[in-house]
């Protein structure tokens, strides 16, 4: 199947709508002068050396982040996917997922590709009857796959930067610079966020109320933090991407605690080896799982579609509006 993608639009095709009224800018929150001062301090902070002692202490614990960095990171992830009635990024372990990625090479087999074929979250099918059996596979996902030389080079470059890994800088000059390493991006990014918090609101980022945390993150996003040439992503882009990964990838990668990220979405997650249709030798055909049908609507929608949240309605509307503009533009 062609993955459904939304087109990236030609610049200037769609006029940017006014920001929603609810979005409070830090200018309002802290006063314009403090805000400008804050940004200046942030830029200054980029040049400051960092305490090495805490770094050594973290490494000694087998961790990447210091306790303060981890607190900032957890607070940031939580702002990207906050808890409400359902768990948020903190409950789901997004920060520990990120730390696991950044320290992937601390183990004999780097934690990059989980093994296969099955976890033990689902049973094998019983093909004589077309029902789930009571036999479960062992969890092969826990045993990560040994990297090839090329994969090792590639993922070390990802984490440390292409100019820090022998043999990885082959396109650095032609492509306009090295691939920035994720470890340094996190070090710098967390420092900038925390410095901004202390300058703009007088406390560590993790200690601020959530509306001030939101305001700081939104302000620095796409102003102080801009995409680099090579990865095409800013620190906040990386943070959002990794938060999503930490909430919804296999629990074996260190996040999505107990599969609660999937539960939040109403997905079963990895569903092998049972799957959704079970072949029965008795009938020489397939039986579907009544609670998770494949060829018919979900049981809870037989009487009518489940309502979306206002945000869900809005996003579908956004896409239809964009599509109309695009179609008009191309005369289609």
């Amino acid at each position: 199947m062609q993955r459904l993608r939304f087109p990236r639009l030609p610049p200037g095709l769609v006029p940017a709508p006014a920001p929603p009224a609810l979005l409070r800018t830090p200018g309002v929150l802290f006063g314009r002068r403090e805000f400008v001062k804050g940004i200046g301090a942030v830029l200054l902070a980029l040049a400051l050396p960092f305490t090495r002692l805490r770094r050594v202490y973290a490494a000694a614990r087998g961790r990447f982040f210091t306790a303060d960095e981890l607190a900032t990171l957890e607070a940031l992830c939580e702002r990207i996917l906050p808890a409400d009635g359902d768990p948020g990024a903190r409950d789901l372990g997004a920060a520990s997922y990120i730390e696991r990625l950044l320290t992937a090479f601390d183990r004999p087999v780097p934690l990059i590709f989980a093994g296969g074929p099955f976890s033990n979250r689902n049973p094998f099918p019983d093909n004589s009857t077309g029902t789930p059996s009571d036999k479960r596979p062992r969890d092969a996902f826990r045993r990560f796959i040994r990297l090839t030389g090329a994969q090792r080079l590639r993922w070390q470059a990802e984490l440390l930067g292409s100019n820090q890994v022998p043999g990885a800088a082959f396109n650095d000059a032609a492509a306009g610079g090295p691939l920035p390493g994720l470890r340094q991006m996190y070090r710098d990014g967390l420092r900038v966020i925390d410095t901004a918090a202390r300058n703009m609101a007088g406390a560590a980022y993790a200690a601020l109320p959530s509306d001030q945390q939101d305001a700081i993150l939104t302000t620095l996003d796409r102003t102080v933090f801009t995409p680099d040439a090579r990865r095409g992503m800013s620190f906040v882009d990386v943070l959002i991407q990794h938060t999503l990964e930490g909430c919804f990838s296999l629990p074996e990668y260190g996040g999505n605690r107990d599969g609660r990220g999937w539960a939040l979405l109403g997905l079963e997650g990895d569903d092998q080896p049972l799957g959704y249709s079970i072949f029965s030798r008795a009938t020489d055909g397939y039986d579907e799982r009544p609670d998770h049908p494949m060829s018919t609507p979900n049981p809870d929608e037989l009487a009518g579609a489940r309502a979306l949240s206002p945000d869900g309605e809005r996003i579908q509307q956004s896409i239809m509006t964009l599509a109309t503009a695009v179609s008009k533009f191309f005369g289609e």
Partner: protein
Amino acid sequence: MATDDLLGNRALRHFDVCIIGSGAGGGTAAYVLTRDDARQNVLVLEAGPNPFPGLDRHPPAPLPFPLHGNDELKYAVRGYIQQDPFLEPRSFRIDDTSDAKLAGDVNGLPKAVGGAFQHADCKTPRFNAVDFRLKTAMDALIAANPGLLVKGFNDEPANFSDWPFTYDDLEPFYAEAEMLYGVQGQAGDNVFESRRSSTYPMAPGVPMYFALRLADGARRVTLPGYGPLSPHTYPAAINSRFYGDRPPCVDCGLCSGFGCPNNSKGSPAVTTLRHALLSGRCQLRFNATAVRLLNDGGHVSAVEYVDGVGRRQQATAGAFILAASAIESARLCLLSPTPGGAALGNSSGQLGQNLMFHLQTTVSGFLPERVHGERGRAVTHGISDFRGVAPGGEEIRLFATDAGQRVALGGICEFSASQGLPITEDGDIYAFQLPGPLGARMGLPLKNVLRDQALGQHLFGLVMQAEDAPQRTNRVDLDPRYVDVHGLPVSRVTYKSHAYELETRKFYLPIMKQIVQQAGAKGFTVDGDTVYALVRPRDALLGLAPSSRHIMGTLRMGPDQASSVVTPAGRFHDVDNLYACDGSVFPTSSGYNPTLTIIAVALKIAHGIVGT
């Protein structure tokens, strides 16, 4: 470490044939050449890693499970078996006057034992009979209908040519391919399918809900002048029962873009390649990237490759078969200069040219009910009406329009929906792709739309795989600036759509929208990446490289040395022991998923090499 990168018979030292690539083309050729009726000793070089440990274990040991799993991160984010866009990037531009930018993934295919087909949802329609003589048929149609203007033919001519053999010549190999790879399907279900000599090995599996909705919608829509559309089940090399030593598919959902954890997808590794490995006549070296063919201009003596620990090695054989996929097979020739300095095998001047991708057009709508696309085989139904041929696939159709008669050779449409991938489909679109306040970058808005799966559970539609015209200017050559991890120039892809496919797209687009509306959608959206590439400022092209994953042309097959690269038997016109048997040899691209035709052509070429 490198000594462990082996499968099959480790003791073999002398090889009759060396095959470069272990996918649909190479795996198939290895199977034919190592059979008891051919008895060739074969070396297969595979650039990627091996997700199938123990694949060469002899029966009664069962076919082992692979390292594949239902794991969005491993495949869709970290590219476990994908050609890595950092280590082996490509550059892309739309024409010679623009600057090629490092684009990472330009229609990249998986690199691993078993090739790219393991990563697909294994859809296997055949081409139509008329596809093999399209140039002749179109010229005759134009001659019989004065005033008929056809873009790519008598208007803005492209480089169309007939195949050097007919559908009837290839039909027995289609039948063999369907049997070898285990194709499910229903003969007669698709009225546009050409003559078949056999039924499908297996019946279609369970249909997907949204596909049935779209099929209903399609039956309510009319093709101008030809009545209602004819939806059909989609043939696929996926088991719908126990077949060979592989189990039935469980419809786990992570199908397109993922390796199959239980081996129910009939990919090359677990079918033809395994047969070859168990024959005792095949040795497969993986993590072995071919970088140069040593040659005297008319004969290849050895292939140089880089092994898993970065050492340069050489392998000799009597003959060599390129099966690394159209872009990589052509690149290897370009990286292999003759003593005179020219690229190997390029006496026609067309090596690397006539590159074809299919023009994909996606029309999607929002279904109010959840589509639950996470259950199923990604695509279970489609329509072939938009190929623009008459039932039976022998004749080109004429359409009467206000502007007079016209033809419209598009392609098969797949009924599709999101596979329920929260990170790379839903999350990526909300947080990154939708501009500014139209999206949901973070916070409760992001959480709410994720929880709704406003796209992932509601977006459904169809994708047309339309034939794109072969053009000499659409090509692969060596980039002058960027290199891969081995320090070799990367493939530079130059590709621009022709009016042939763009006008066809315009013709079918309104009908595609009707299908989605009739299926119950409350609105729709059109994906037009390829079209944007034509109008966007050149410096904004990064990231807009084609991603159809259907790659054909570059080593065109034909009888004439002046206008084709390989003979009808698949041998290079000008290199006496070098063959190609992947999508590179296709003279035209038709409008159907190409893999079954790649397999059938590989069967025909390989059987021809050994006379079986």
